[in-house]
């Protein structure tokens, strides 16, 4: 049996990366001759969540409930997942390669004394059990053997497309209340600030996205880019460097740990095109890269490119648009 840890949004929905992980699990299950897939969720799932998970081919939804699960603790989640794994005799435990997924599976790996493979993109075969995962930020791939049981791995975001199964699973709900030792609750979230409203909707649906990366230079370096956004009636999407430096809010991030976009045109300015960023924009119909480095991956992968300093190129484009409009 395969156990997949499914993360649930505050609105009660299975997050996309978890649905991707189940989609990935189905290929593994099929290769193993139709091994059943069970999901673990934290908290009581509502009917629509169960229906969605069943449509993805999930046989059982194990719901971890009880006060130990009121606030996040990686150790407590790991105890719950291990309880499900052990009682069901699962040989594979999977999660999505999100912070939660990697954290919980790392606890399982430490406890069981077995390897854990983070950010897997494909599996090579079942005997020996080999997976391929992203390393060096995705610039290289590592083939790894998971010959000990349980085999533990997380699936890198957006390496497969989440899609429902041809044959739905039963989606039977099993409530689980495993004993959680106090030690698991020492490191748990004590407060969560108001979630930022999800403002990524317009970014995901925009026909044109203007992208900005480290090349923007500073929080003040966005004026011309925002003018271009305005002139094209576009949305702004940024690289992780930009959000981690605090230049722009997280909901604007494109990539593996941000939004996945498929606009008619993506205009990444000063973005190198690291694989985690590429994962979020590769399905754009056209890409116009603006970069000082003609060898930047974003430039070589783009459909169109301008080589140059975005602080010179973007104002010139804005001026040209204004000129043509008269």
């Amino acid at each position: 049996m395969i156990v997949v840890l499914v993360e649930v949004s505050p609105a009660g929905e299975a997050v996309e990366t978890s649905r991707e992980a189940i989609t990935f699990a189905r290929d593994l299950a099929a290769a193993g001759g139709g091994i059943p897939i069970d999901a673990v969720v934290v908290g009581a799932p509502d009917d629509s969540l169960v229906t969605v998970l069943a449509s993805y081919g999930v046989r059982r939804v194990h719901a971890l409930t009880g006060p130990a699960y009121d606030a996040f603790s990686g150790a407590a989640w790991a105890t719950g997942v291990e309880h499900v794994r052990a009682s069901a005799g699962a040989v594979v435990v999977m999660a999505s390669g999100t912070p939660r997924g990697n954290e919980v599976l790392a606890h399982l790996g430490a406890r069981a004394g077995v390897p854990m493979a983070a950010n897997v993109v494909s599996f090579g075969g079942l005997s020996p059990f080999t997976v391929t995962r992203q390393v060096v930020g995705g610039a290289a791939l590592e083939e790894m053997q998971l010959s000990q049981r349980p085999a533990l791995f997380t699936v890198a975001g957006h390496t497969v497309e989440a899609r429902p199964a041809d044959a739905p699973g039963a989606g039977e709900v099993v409530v689980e209340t495993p004993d959680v030792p106090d030690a698991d609750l020492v490191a748990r979230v004590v407060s969560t600030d108001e979630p930022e409203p999800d403002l990524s909707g317009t970014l995901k649906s925009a026909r044109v996205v203007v992208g900005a990366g480290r090349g923007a230079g500073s929080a003040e370096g966005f004026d011309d880019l925002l003018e271009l956004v305005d002139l094209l009636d576009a949305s702004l999407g940024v690289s992780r460097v930009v959000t981690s430096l605090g230049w722009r809010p997280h909901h604007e991030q494109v990539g593996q740990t941000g939004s996945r976009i498929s606009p008619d045109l993506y205009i990444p300015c000063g973005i190198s095109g690291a694989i985690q960023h590429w994962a979020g924009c590769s399905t754009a119909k056209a890409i116009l890269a603006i970069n000082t480095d003609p060898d930047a991956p974003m430039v070589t992968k783009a459909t169109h490119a301008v080589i140059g300093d975005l602080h010179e190129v973007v104002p010139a484009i804005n001026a040209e648009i204004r000129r043509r409009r008269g």
Partner: protein
Amino acid sequence: MNPLVCVKRVVDSSSEVVLTEDGQGVDGRFAGFTTSAHEECAVELAVRIAADQGGGATVVTLGDADAVEQLRSALAVGCTAATHVLVDAQSLGPADVARELAAVVRDHEAAGTPHQLVLLGNDAADSGDHQVGIRLAHELGWPVVNGVSTVSVSDGTVTASGSGPDGHETYRVPLPAVVTVLEGGVEPRYPTVPGRMKAKKVPIEERQPVAEPVGPARVRLVLPPPSPSSVEVLGEGAAAAPAVVDLFERLGVLAR
């Protein structure tokens, strides 16, 4: 308060990545080496916590002789002691690294300089294993907070916070504890010239590993297939603007 901060020498992967001939590692001879971004932030946090609490931050690395450069960099920005486990880092898996770090923590405690707090990067820029901190905490029997970007200590408690899936999350954990750090919460400081001079003189504790490594469960590294480039270069600099706007018109994306 004497926090321990763990750093790793990694190949600078901002340009093209080249693998070693045996496919077991990344060849850094041309690209050069650096410290992971997450760990630079962990060093900054360790130095601030030590200053705040009165004490010194110790930096540790596992690596070959050249990894001393990463230790000197951390010493140059305020760490006051350094430990070097001399080992081929490529031969180690995450469980090996955790075991060696735990041995350092235990030996330092036995020597009278205990570390109540260990800071690590959330994941290394090269191996991206996402588990050394958690495995270390497991070895030590300490609690672990993962993936946070701000960390402070007062009255024997670590307060750490970072962004979670549902908002900004805060943890409060009694010492001793392990914390893994994600970049973004602090700006690592640059070394000053006196800082660099001072760092050169700090004696470095050199150690051998305490156990045979189990190794990473690696078969080999491979490079993803290069995608053939079919990019149309529209021009260079500001002069490309008319060609760009022509493209916008062709694609029909120019709002009217």
